């Protein structure tokens, strides 16, 4: 279980003195139970990406703490490498996330080499198996990221993330900018993966339609805080907060 308590991240506004600080994340309490699919919905500026960076240890909170199975994850002095394998982050821009000089093989093998101790033969087997699960033909292994379509790049990023069997996968606008048909196939892949891996998903998106498709528990974020947390099972009337209703209205035809 991942538990965040009172997370805050403040950014100083330039030239206005220490008094002026902008809270990007302004007091967030979140609990993620193992194996559950969560979505976090918010517009740009709601603080959702900052929250993603906090939860994956990319930035430190100004206040508050978060725990994995009771153990604090806030990076204190040294970097805890084992954290990298437990919580993985998948971002929107697949192309920038991949080293343009690496082949697809090396891109997928990289986290395996860095975080796991396996032989070259095992590494190769793992890479081939991941390609199959991502429904990518093995022929793509020798291509570089620039030679892949957006959807293919995304699948490679997902393969990298799951190669180390993380407990928690955080997706930050991971399917934004993809054609809707490609998007749907990636989301279906992710749903299937989650059932197979039994990992926890936190799917961060501005699009409530995507959130409703992929998750059972939906957090709605506004102005750095969680406005609502609803358990969704096909019935949108579970959302009570006016802001949630506004978001829902924007997707009705």
């Amino acid at each position, binding site marked *: 279980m991942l538990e965040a308590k009172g997370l805050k991240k403040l950014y100083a506004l330039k030239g206005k003195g220490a008094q002026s600080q902008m809270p990007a994340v302004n007091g967030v309490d979140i609990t993620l139970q193992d194996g559950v699919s969560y979505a976090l919905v918010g517009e*740009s500026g709601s603080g959702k990406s900052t929250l993603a960076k906090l939860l994956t240890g990319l930035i430190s909170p100004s206040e508050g703490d978060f725990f994995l199975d009771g153990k604090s994850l806030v990076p204190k002095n040294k970097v805890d490498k084992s954290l990298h394998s437990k919580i993985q982050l998948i971002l929107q821009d697949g192309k920038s996330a991949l080293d343009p000089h690496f082949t697809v093989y090396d891109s997928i093998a990289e986290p395996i080499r860095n975080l796991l101790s396996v032989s070259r033969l095992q590494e190769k087997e793992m890479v081939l198996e991941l390609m199959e699960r991502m429904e990518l033909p093995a022929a793509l292994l020798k291509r570089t990221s620039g030679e892949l379509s957006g959807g293919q790049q995304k699948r490679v990023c997902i393969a990298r993330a799951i190669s180390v069997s993380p407990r928690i996968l955080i997706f930050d606008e991971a399917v934004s900018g993809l054609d*809707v048909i490609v998007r749907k196939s990636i989301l279906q892949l992710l749903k299937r993966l989650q059932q197979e891996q039994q990992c926890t998903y936190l799917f961060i998106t501005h699009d409530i339609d995507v959130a409703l*498709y992929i998750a059972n528990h939906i957090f709605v974020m506004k102005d750095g805080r969680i406005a609502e947390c609803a358990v969704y099972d096909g019935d949108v009337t579970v959302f009570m907060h006016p802001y949630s209703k506004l978001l829902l209205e924007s997707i009705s035809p």
Partner: protein
Amino acid sequence: MNKLLEIKDLSITLKKENWEVVKNLNFDLNAGSSLTLLGQSGSGKTLTCKSILGVLGVQFSPSGEILFEGHNLLNLPAKTRGSIYGSQIAMIAQNPMTAFDPSAKIGRQMDETLRIHTKLSPAERHSRCLQALNEAGLTREETVMESYPFMLSGGMLQRVMIALALMTDAKLIIADEPTTALDVENRNATVDAFVRLRERGTAVLLVTHDFMVAARFGSRVLVMKDGKIVEDDSADNILKNPKHPYTRELLSASRLSFYGREEV
């Protein structure tokens, strides 16, 4: 009804591979009416737009005719280009965040357009800008004029672009994926601004991959796949009763949560 734009047997070939990316396209747009080209990447919709705008690129060779008020845009003499593009045909870019000069306030950039193309006084230009911003669906028009581009959201910048297009009095506005870079809420506001454009008599050619954008814009929709038109119907009909299997696939992928969350 006079035909503003006629696409006749338009084919576009990628020369290097002798690959026909757009295959024998035919459609018309009447003055003051609108049309949506709906398709995914690779459908040929952007190349079709580019050929209408005269920016196709030397690696492609078009054939057929694109008639704008009788002028063939594929065969336009250089001196006629200036009088058509920018004044009669205007374009709305996909990414509003990069379309503006980041070092100048919005008001100054808008004013510049009018200063170059009209003989209005500074006061007249100012009120024309405010009026255009208002027509494009923005409130607090004075604040927008005083802002730098980075202070405004993508959705607001998109509406500023629409305001700029409104000020040109163009007969045809072409928008290629104008909402793709935007959040859902900004997306709706932008589409509504295009509807207003249409209502005041400007012909709008909207290109998008997003079914819900086409539905909200509510005009005639041409669904494109692999360089061809696979379905041609009103947005309303396509939403309620899509005929072609590809259209149905697009619809279900655009409204994920409406079709129930099928077990994978």
